[in-house]
């Protein structure tokens, strides 16, 4: 297991290099002078050259790139222009809402998606199967933000059960926090649960048609035991990958959900950065999110290897 972990970590290095280079190149995609775009039209030449010097833009490109790598290795993500604050600090300040949102959405997605998929597979061909599969394909097709808008319209505007938008930190009490987080989390979680339910169903159908399941049934193993102990365990490995990959969906969804529900999280920070053309901020946040996503997928791969010794020893 230890060798496998090291092996996976080494494999991550070139990808990390590519990721940081892509983020660096973003600034070069801007047509014209990025400093002029950042500061707006009413700035003097002196202000521009000051910012240029601060960002190191007055140096040749390859020197800039080396500086960029050097700073990243030291864990320095640069300073936001508008907030005048270290990007890492700005990120950490906004982390709690986004973290809670992603966590709740994941819970929501798994709690709805897995049981729906298992039941649909168990009752293959029944009305429940048809209804749940229709729901999931609609769920996958519905844009996240439209689900959110509909939820607000139904539960906040019409029924008045939940607040329209806003955020209360966990320190204000769990219930108060949940009241504000319920709709945003469900908005993202629904799309994910649809994806998971589809995947679970097809995996379970595959496994349930295997010979060893028939053997288990014919020797009189209880049906629930067959489902969970024999079938789900083997369907779990591809499902874990789906959950890991759909983490990107969660992070992307969080940005949209925060925008709809006015939640002061990382996503809103990113959108603010985009609209103010605060490139260091956008670059820094993008890097952090990519790193988080890569780590989550690494964890998924390692869990995988823990569950299935064949993977550990294959290469």
């Amino acid at each position, binding site marked *: 297991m230890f060798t496998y972990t090291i092996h996976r970590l080494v494999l991550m290095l070139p990808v990390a290099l*590519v990721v940081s280079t892509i983020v660096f190149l973003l600034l070069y995609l*801007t047509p014209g002078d990025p400093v002029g775009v950042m500061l707006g039209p009413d700035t003097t030449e002196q202000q521009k050259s000051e910012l240029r010097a601060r960002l190191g833009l007055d140096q040749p490109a390859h020197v800039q790139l080396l500086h960029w790598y050097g700073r990243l290795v030291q864990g320095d993500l640069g300073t936001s222009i508008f907030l005048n604050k270290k990007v890492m600090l700005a990120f950490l300040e906004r982390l709690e809402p986004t973290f809670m949102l992603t966590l709740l959405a994941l819970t929501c997605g798994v709690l709805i998606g897995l049981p729906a998929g298992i039941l649909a597979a168990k009752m293959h061909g029944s009305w429940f199967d048809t209804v749940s599969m229709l729901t999931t394909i*609609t769920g996958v097709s519905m844009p996240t933000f*439209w689900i959110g808008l509909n939820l607000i319209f139904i539960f906040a505007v019409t029924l008045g059960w939940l607040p329209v938008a806003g955020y209360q930190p966990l320190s204000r009490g769990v219930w108060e926090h949940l009241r504000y987080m319920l709709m945003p989390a469900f908005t993202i979680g629904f799309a994910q649960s649809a994806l998971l339910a589809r995947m679970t169903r097809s995996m379970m159908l595959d496994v349930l048609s295997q010979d060893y399941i028939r053997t288990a049934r014919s020797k009189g193993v209880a049906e629930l035991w067959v489902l969970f102990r024999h079938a789900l365990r083997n369907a779990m490995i591809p499902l874990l990958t789906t959950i890991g990959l759909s983490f990107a969906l969660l992070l992307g969804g969080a940005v949209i959900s925060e925008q709809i529900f006015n939640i002061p999280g990382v996503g809103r920070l990113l*959108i603010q950065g985009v*609209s103010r053309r605060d*490139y260091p901020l956008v*670059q820094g946040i*993008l890097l952090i999110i990519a790193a988080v996503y890569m780590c989550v997928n690494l964890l998924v791969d390692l869990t995988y290897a823990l569950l299935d010794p064949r993977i550990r020893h294959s290469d």
Partner: protein
Amino acid sequence: MIRLKRQRREALQTRAVVLPPRLIWRQRLMRLLLRNKGIPIGGTLLVVVIGMALAAPWLTHLDPMGLNPRGRLMPPGQLHPFGTDNFGRDVFSRTVWGARLSLEIGFLVAILTAISGTCVGLIAGYFRRLDTSIMRVMDGMMAFPGILLAIALMSALGPSKFNVVTALTMVYIPRLARVIRSVTLSVREMQFVEAAHAQGMSHQRILWRHILPGCLSPLIVQGTFLFAEAVLGEASLSFLGAGTPPYIPSWGNMLGEARAYLRDAPWTMLFPGLSLTVTVLALNLLGDGIRDILDPRLRRG
């Protein structure tokens, strides 16, 4: 129930054996199309949306960008079947013209991604020496959640229709390249490729004549899903204010503005969202259906 179905299927299969070859082929295709519900339903819905987009100038005489400050937020009525928005613009004509924009961008992104992704995938899968470096770059691009990379690209490129297409294409290329690469890897080991090599066929010709045709069916399936994905992607970007410029009628833009008027004018949210869902649903159903037909591994029975 299941056993009955199986018996019927077996009966159909035994009958098919007796029929002449061409009839078997045609009958099998017909049977597949009939059993498959995705293609007829998705296809019909898509035709309706395309029809709406093409007929936009004749469906409504109202200017989708025409402002009317006195007729703000009017509920659906005779003059405005879908009501008006916060600037007094007609929601119906904006929805209809929005279909045009969504399909335009979705189609362009799907085609451009298909072309460039196929090139990258073919090269990576065929020329083994380039494989590692190309695929590491693709892995790096896939390390970002798609929508976030698109947002970042849009912030660098600036808002315009053309840039939305560019950004989305760049985001989707790695995914397609991966699929095409894996198909290429398996096709290039086939004996007919080896035979072509032995005959002295050039690499270019082998790629074009022997490997590309093998990639065609995953390409069609992925292309349909990419179309759906791109329609959603454009709408999400525009909703966040990082996509199509706000004056252009796009479903995402409309929904972004509708957010502030949920209480007073829910119709501004209802119609563009519904059209968006129907379009994406149609494409997803179509993609599922095509995959069932083209991909024999996933076909049941």
